[in-house]
């Protein structure tokens, strides 16, 4: 498991270089082929015992982040999210820009006219300790800014930034190392998922997969403040299977195959009980000739924030499930 290293790395959409490099170093020599495509997707190939099917595993390397959009006269920095971030999670936080840090302050409580005023990126600024533009050194418009949370592990749970989707990346490296796939398998680490499924949109034009499994860190929402029957997923209940999300309804054949394997191997699983959000599955299914896709996720609380939480037991069970699927021939009879 490389969750610690991977979540501590910074890799926003369009700035995945550090994550890609780390993964490449880990899997080089353990796969039969490896290349980086025009958009920056890292595609590794591992030969299976049979070549009758081409299976793709996908996880996205990018995390939600920020971009500096202006260096202001007063020495502050304006910024915008790269990916979907609620501005409320940034207030009072520290961000990293290259080797510098800055803080996102806010008007003191005493000076606010209305306590429930809306926070917007229009007004938020990063303060790097400069009081005029000339004092801002080595930071330019277009630079990325990142949450600074360090990975922490406690009592079977991890707290980190970027669990969405370094958890998928870590699982994929584990699978490269430990799984003996039945069929030829492509391990595809994509770019730009958080800005609209960018990387995965060019995968099918290159690979013509027969089926794919997307590995994600998905939203939990298992909070006392939400009705229990409105929870999307629950930490500790095992890997999450998605049946429907934006732009794609999961193919019955693959969904049933995954359930069959989980039950046979006695691996706990849960269905995602919300249909919100979307994953690379939608692009794999609808670009070029298309291929059916499944989504298997580790439930994560508070995704798209600097403090997301996941259970290591869920991670382990997700690994087991996907490994078992890869090493089975369950998909053979199910695909045309």
């Amino acid at each position, binding site marked *: 498991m490389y969750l610690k290293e991977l979540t501590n790395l910074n890799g926003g959409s369009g700035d995945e270089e550090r994550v890609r490099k780390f993964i490449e170093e880990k899997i080089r020599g353990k796969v039969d082929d490896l290349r980086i495509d025009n958009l920056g997707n890292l595609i590794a190939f591992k030969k299976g015992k049979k070549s009758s099917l081409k299976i793709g595993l996908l996880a996205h390397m990018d995390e939600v982040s920020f971009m500096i959009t202006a260096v202001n006269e007063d020495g502050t920095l304006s910024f915008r999210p790269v990916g979907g971030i609620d501005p409320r999670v940034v207030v009072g936080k520290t961000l990293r820009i290259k080797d510098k840090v800055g803080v996102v302050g806010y008007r003191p409580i005493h000076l606010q006219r209305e306590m429930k005023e809306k926070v917007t990126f229009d007004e938020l600024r990063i303060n790097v300790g400069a009081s005029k533009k000339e004092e801002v050194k080595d930071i330019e418009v277009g630079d990325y800014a990142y949450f600074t949370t360090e990975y922490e592990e406690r009592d079977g749970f991890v707290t980190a930034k970027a669990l969405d989707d370094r958890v998928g990346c870590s699982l994929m490296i584990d699978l490269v190392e430990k799984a003996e796939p039945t069929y030829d398998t492509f391990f595809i680490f994509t770019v730009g998922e958080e800005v609209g499924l960018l990387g995965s949109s060019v995968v099918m*034009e290159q690979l013509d997969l027969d089926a794919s499994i997307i590995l994600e860190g998905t939203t939990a929402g298992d909070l006392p403040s939400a009705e229990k029957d409105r929870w999307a997923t629950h930490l500790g209940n095992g890997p999450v299977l998605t049946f429907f999300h934006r732009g794609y309804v999961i193919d019955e054949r693959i969904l049933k195959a995954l359930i069959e394997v989980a039950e046979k191997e006695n691996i706990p699983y849960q269905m995602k009980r919300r249909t919100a959000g979307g994953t690379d599955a939608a692009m794999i299914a609808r670009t070029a000739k298309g291929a059916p896709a499944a989504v298997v996720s580790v439930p994560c609380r508070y995704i798209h924030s600097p403090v997301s939480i996941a259970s290591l037991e869920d991670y382990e069970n997700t690994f087991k499930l996907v490994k078992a699927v890869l090493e089975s021939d369950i998909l053979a009879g199910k695909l045309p």
Partner: protein
Amino acid sequence: MKKTVDLLKKLSSVDAPSGWEDRAVEEIEKILKEGRRTKLGGLVHEAKGRGRFRKRVGVFAHVDEVSLVVSAEAGDGFFYIETVGGVDPKILPASKVKVYTRDGVVRGVIGIMAPHITPPEKKGKVQGYDDLLLDVSMDDWRKVRVGDRVVLDVQPCELNGKVCGKALDDRAGCTALILAREFLKKLFSKNDVYFVFSSMEEVGGGGAKTVAHELKIDYAIVVDVTFAEKIEGYQKIEIGKGPAIGIGPFIDRELAKRAMEIAKENGINHQIEALPMRTGTDADDVRRAWVGIKTLLLSIPLLHMHTPVEIVDPKDVEETARLIAHVAASL
């Protein structure tokens, strides 16, 4: 500069609403003398390179412009209209328009009720498309049918050296491509460069993306316009300071860096535009065409986008053209 100004004015005055791009394509074809039509109504002009290992570079500008469409009959020479691409209804009252009918052009106006008889509750209210009426009663209005396209009847002008008119989004880009083609002849171009005048950008219709796929290009340079207004939270892009080179997840980073270096080496003014999400241009789709294309976005600063009084600085158009040529020749 005179040539640039003339070209901008000429192309601005052509009417080519999205999907009905033929008039602009014909005009550009006349200027470039060579080219072939694309399936979706665009034009490709090829400039062969002389390198031993030639890359395929596509340079894109869209020829279509935002427009209006006749959406319903209101009787007696009056019609309702809708927008095709984003036209702000606030700019429409008291405008002259041209209606392109199957039987030729019919002239009309979009009127507004005189203040004397405007009821108090309607005074100062912004009129949406439901409240606006196209009035062609003064012309041969029986030729007008639902589905006919409407453009504002305005002529370009010069303002203190700047050019003002409609459709400079993206005829300014088209002008830059035409100038770049000329400029390229003076350079040693290693690469095969395809100048693509694409259709249907304003309706997200994929005119550029499909050509990118068909041509199987290695690199794309998308040339469009960008806001020269101050936007809260963003560094201001200014007119007269050269093309804005985009940076963001939809743009190839190395290519953007290379473009900045090339601009510096050749003394070409340029600005940086942060694009944290989608760019809102053909770059978003071209980047995802085929197996994924390394894409650069150059944007010409423009004021009052999607109005009949868009303003660009011809210097920016020329700087953009030089940058296109240098980048395309040397990749």
